[in-house]
């Protein structure tokens, strides 16, 4: 379950190039995000650390690998780490996956410490249950970077998205398109998951300021297309006209299928960067000018975590909390993203060492996060 969370969550995030977002939304996203993300930045050298890390191993402990999203993430990690090893930036790397079992993941983290890893990046199956293992790792002098989620243990560094801001960006977009008035359907992720709650809270906080927007239904799509399609299909007959659908990623295409199958007028469905969603949107746009936006996490966020770990090992003083940008796709960049996204996969864009370093800088200074470029079409 937790595993899925990420996938869901991640799926939703997107990188975004400054230019991508409509001015208001984007700058809001970034500035607010950053504002919130302005954590106590250590007094830092605001540039890439060059310390010798060639003999140090970095490990990746993943909570789960049972989804396409996670499979891409694992590959991203291995490719990045392999190249880094070749470039003499690390001495080795390793990857273990825990099938969503926190006890197993805690054990794997302890093993990595014993095996001499100098830094571990963690996609955590729980925000509390790994605290012991994380603390032990820290006391053994290992740098711990938790990404796409968090743990409550203070010694860990966090690389994460601002999920509430994602919810706000969705509502802001729909509010603009619907001119402040319309019925919304909310597709949530997995009940009880913290990412699900953060996104939904962001959605409702933003929507509460818009009296014309009304939520007519809520379903839990579990960040899974088949589930979302079923849940939306089953609630549709009981709903009045739906004008907009707020989503969390991995659920937009299923929602679109459900509306089409029911013979309903298509609402504006926020997409989550999956190839299916983008391709459907492109086709629909060609047919009748349908427009929406898409945003979500990218599997490559593991690369950002990897480089943060590398920078820590190289001696850089990094803020405890690093916020990374979501990938957002707007109408004008749609074709380029469809082309750049592998068939059946999810939109992705690399977090290089340079980009990660700039992201760390931005977090230190409270400046806007650097843009992730739209692929060249």
């Amino acid at each position, binding site marked *: 379950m937790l595993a899925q969370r990420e996938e869901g969550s991640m799926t939703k995030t997107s990188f975004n190039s400054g230019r991508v977002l409509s001015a208001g939304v984007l700058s809001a996203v970034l500035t607010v995000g950053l504002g919130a993300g302005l954590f106590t930045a250590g007094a830092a050298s605001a540039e890439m650390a060059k310390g010798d890390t060639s003999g140090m191993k970095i490990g990746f402990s993943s909570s789960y*690998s049972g989804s*396409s999203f996670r499979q891409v993430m694992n590959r991203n990690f291995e490719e990045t780490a392999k190249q880094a090893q070749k470039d003499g930036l690390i001495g080795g790397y390793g990857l273990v996956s825990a099938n969503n079992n926190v006890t197993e993941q805690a054990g794997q983290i302890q093993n990595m410490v014993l095996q001499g890893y100098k830094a571990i990046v963690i996609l955590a199956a729980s925000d509390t249950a790994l605290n012991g293992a994380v603390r032990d790792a820290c006391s053994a002098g290992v740098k711990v970077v938790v990404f796409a989620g968090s743990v409550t243990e203070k010694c860990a560094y966090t690389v994460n998205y601002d999920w509430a801001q994602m919810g706000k960006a969705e509502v802001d977009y729909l509010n603009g398109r619907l001119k402040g008035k319309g019925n919304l359907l909310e597709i949530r992720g997995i009940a009880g998951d913290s990412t699900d709650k953060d996104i939904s809270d962001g959605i409702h906080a933003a929507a509460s300021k818009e009296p014309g927007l009304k939520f007519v239904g809520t379903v839990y799509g579990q960040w899974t297309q088949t589930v979302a399609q*079923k849940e939306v299909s*089953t609630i549709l007959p009981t709903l009045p006209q739906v004008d907009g659908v707020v989503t969390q990623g991995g659920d937009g295409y299923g929602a679109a299928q459900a509306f089409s199958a029911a013979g309903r007028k298509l609402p504006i469905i926020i997409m989550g960067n*999956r190839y299916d969603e983008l391709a459907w949107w492109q086709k629909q746009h060609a047919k009748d000018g349908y427009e929406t936006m898409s945003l979500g996490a990218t599997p490559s966020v593991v690369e950002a975590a990897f480089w943060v770990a590398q920078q820590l090992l190289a001696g850089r003083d990094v803020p405890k909390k690093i916020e990374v940008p979501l990938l957002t796709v707007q109408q004008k960049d749609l074709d380029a993203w469809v082309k750049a996204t592998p068939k059946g996969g999810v939109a992705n864009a690399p977090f290089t060492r340079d980009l990660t370093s700039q992201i760390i800088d931005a977090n230190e200074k409270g400046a806007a996060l650097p843009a992730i470029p739209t692929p060249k079409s």
Partner: protein
Amino acid sequence: MSVAPARAARRLSLPPSAYGFIAAALLWGGTMLLSDGRGGIEMLSVALSFSIFSVAVGTGQMFVIASGPGNIDLSCPAVITLCAYVSMNLMGGADGMLPVGLIAALVLGGVIGLVNYGLVRALKIPPIIATLAASFVVTSLAMWYGGESTVRPPQALSDFMIWRVGGVQVALILALIGSGVVHLVLHRTVYGRSLLALGQNARAAQLAGIRVGFVRMTAYAVSGMMAGLCGFLLAGFTGGAALNMGEAYLMESVAVAVLGGTSVAGGRASAFGIWGAALFLSLLVTLLNSTGLGAGARYLFTGLTILVVIFFATERRK
């Protein structure tokens, strides 16, 4: 389980397979009240079209559960996923390859079912462990084989899944006919009778000359094939094979079989009862979604409602 008291109980009350339908009808009425009578027919139609998948995988599960106490197939979700990937990849989106894809899904599912039975029989591993272990292996194969992407179905398969004649979904009619065949097999053939006899008392069945091993083996094979079929159809309906597509069907396959009147102790099965149970579960989701209750309350109601239905549907000896 002795046959005579069971018969007596059945004479006194409704057959266990009826309770799913009754519960479904109550839920449907309740949802209509909540939604001011809106969309009653659409609601049923949606519930029926999604029932096709849970009925497919649930029917396979029913064969296994009916074959005797302790028999269960936990590998269904993994089989659904792997068969979907393999068949979608084989077809590569080409309409002409549909029969190949379908046969591949059925054969692969059947083979995995045989392997399951092999683990249970040859290695003497309890079915709950054996099929769970097999499911990890199958899931790993799906990850390795399907991995990073969703594989799209041929257009003809997608079109077929939503094809309606006079407002009636053709796939639904075929699925109902399939259940009719299963019903006949269970109650009118030597094989079906053997399966139920074996489920009631394996020792007695063996003494009566039934080839216990063979009958149970086919039950596992049927379960694998039905999961494979479910994966094939589901991928066609939802736009492709994806790694987590089967997850929802683990509990669902067991739930529809048991709520549909299959005895957990083995020896009793109902091909049509599964439809009642599948409708019930689907309409329960509709009802709870339309109440707008929080997730916690929804889970609570789901659990309680299932308990109530099971309470009525299960025969208890005094």
